[in-house]
């Protein structure tokens, strides 16, 4: 398991360094604007999640899975390492996002609000949810075929939210209490789904031929 994580981190070192540079540049550009910081935070977490998809793409290109399964690595470990990588880079991205808020907060002398922190944590769980949906699809259909699906997974919820807000369907329907409960229940649901997704991926890979 550790070896597989090393491999991904070594392999993506250059790519991640470039991402950090982009985030730093954007930090300078957007950080000073009013809503810039929150955009940057969300962007950082999202991008870190994309690192996992890139690593899958690299693996597919190198025919890595076929090779690594000839080594003392079980299919469960193979899949598990991707979920762990997802957890690690998304958590890492969230920490970087928090650091960005702190730096911007110090420079603009506004500090960091609790709202910002909750935003990042929400973003972290949203990314876990997306990974949970995406990884089984990537294992089932391969990165190339799953590109459209990645787009859908990212866009459909956004469209849904826009639609709901435009139609005003929920304007009166949601109480403050409901939202507060949701804030605590949602992460638990996400974690459960993430674990279920892992087992689904394992069963997909078990049926797969290399």
């Amino acid at each position, binding site marked *: 398991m*550790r*070896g*597989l994580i*090393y*491999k991904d981190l*070594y*392999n*993506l*070192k*250059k790519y991640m360094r470039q991402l950090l540079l982009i985030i730093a540049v954007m930090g300078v550009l957007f950080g000073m604007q009013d809503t810039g910081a929150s955009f940057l935070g969300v962007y950082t977490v999202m991008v870190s999640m994309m690192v996992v998809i890139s690593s899958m793409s*690299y*693996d597919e290109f*190198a*025919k*890595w899975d*076929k*090779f*690594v*399964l*000839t*080594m*003392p*690595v*079980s*299919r*469960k470990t193979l899949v598990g390492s991707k979920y762990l990588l997802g957890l690690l880079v998304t958590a890492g991205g969230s920490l970087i996002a928090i650091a960005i808020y702190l730096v911007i907060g110090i420079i603009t002398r506004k500090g960091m609000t609790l709202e910002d922190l909750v935003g990042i944590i929400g973003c972290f769980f949203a990314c876990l949810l997306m990974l949970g949906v995406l990884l089984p699809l990537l294992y089932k259909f391969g990165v190339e075929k799953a590109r459209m699906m990645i787009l859908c997974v990212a866009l459909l919820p956004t469209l849904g939210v826009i639609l709901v807000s435009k139609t005003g369907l929920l304007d009166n329907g949601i109480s403050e209490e409901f939202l507060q409960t949701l804030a605590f229940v949602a992460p638990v649901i996400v974690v459960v789904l993430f674990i279920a997704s892992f087992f689904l991926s394992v069963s997909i890979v078990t049926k797969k*031929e*290399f």
Partner: protein
Amino acid sequence: MSNLLELRGVCKDYRDFQLNNVSFALPGGAIMGFVGENGAGKTTTLKCILGLVRRDAGEVEVFGKPLNVDDVAAKAQIGVVFDESYFHDNLTTVQVDHMMASIFRDAWDAAYFEALRKRFALPKDKIIKSFSRGMKMKLSIAAALAHHPKLLLLDEATSGLDPIVRDEILDVFLEFISDEQHSILFSSHITSDLEKIADYVTFIHNGKVMFSKNKDTLIYEYGIARCTAAQAAKVASSDVAVTRKTAMGTEFLVTDRDSFHRRYPDVVLDRVSIEDIMLFYVKGHKEDKSCAV
């Protein structure tokens, strides 16, 4: 001596290709050449051995036990080299070492890997992307040997390499095999490599094993009979394995050169190479009657 690898009646059905009843056994201390043209089923057979694909019928035993793809203890004793390097382009040799050490744990011999790296003159800190094809294969071979496997499975590991590199690599394989507990299954279509190092030759064609024999038997007992049309008419079908017509006349592959010579003393009889035998099976006809013109 017990078999390190044994296949019995292995079948795999793809829509456009069938692996049909593949059986052979590889004893300890031996190198088996696994020959066949491209698409004959060599890689599919190796995948069946490793459990990378599900076989539809038959049994595979590695170290005397069925092998499951999730059996990490058994897989720790196997080294596999495919026809190209599957290490990621962005890694360096040092990083490969570090990663493999984490995967193989105690079995990984970093000192041996380093010795092989030096022997193969592989750079330490350059990324694999900058390696030549030969260097990539050498890295794959070093990585497959550094955990001291008992069984080495090579899938076209020397194809596409120049003769110098191939010779270096064959030397490493011969060293590996000097231990009686070690065996190599060496899939290749470069028959000269197999003539150099193989003890056994298994020939696969259209998903079927045509023969699996001791190499010396093939080279010392098999022969090519070159006949004129008149001579060919006299040869009994039971005396030949395969018939092939050429511009010069008819050629027969015979399995027992000496007895054929006793029966037909005036027919020109030559020794065969593995390549000749392969060509006979692929291009010739395995006919029941003699090829009378």
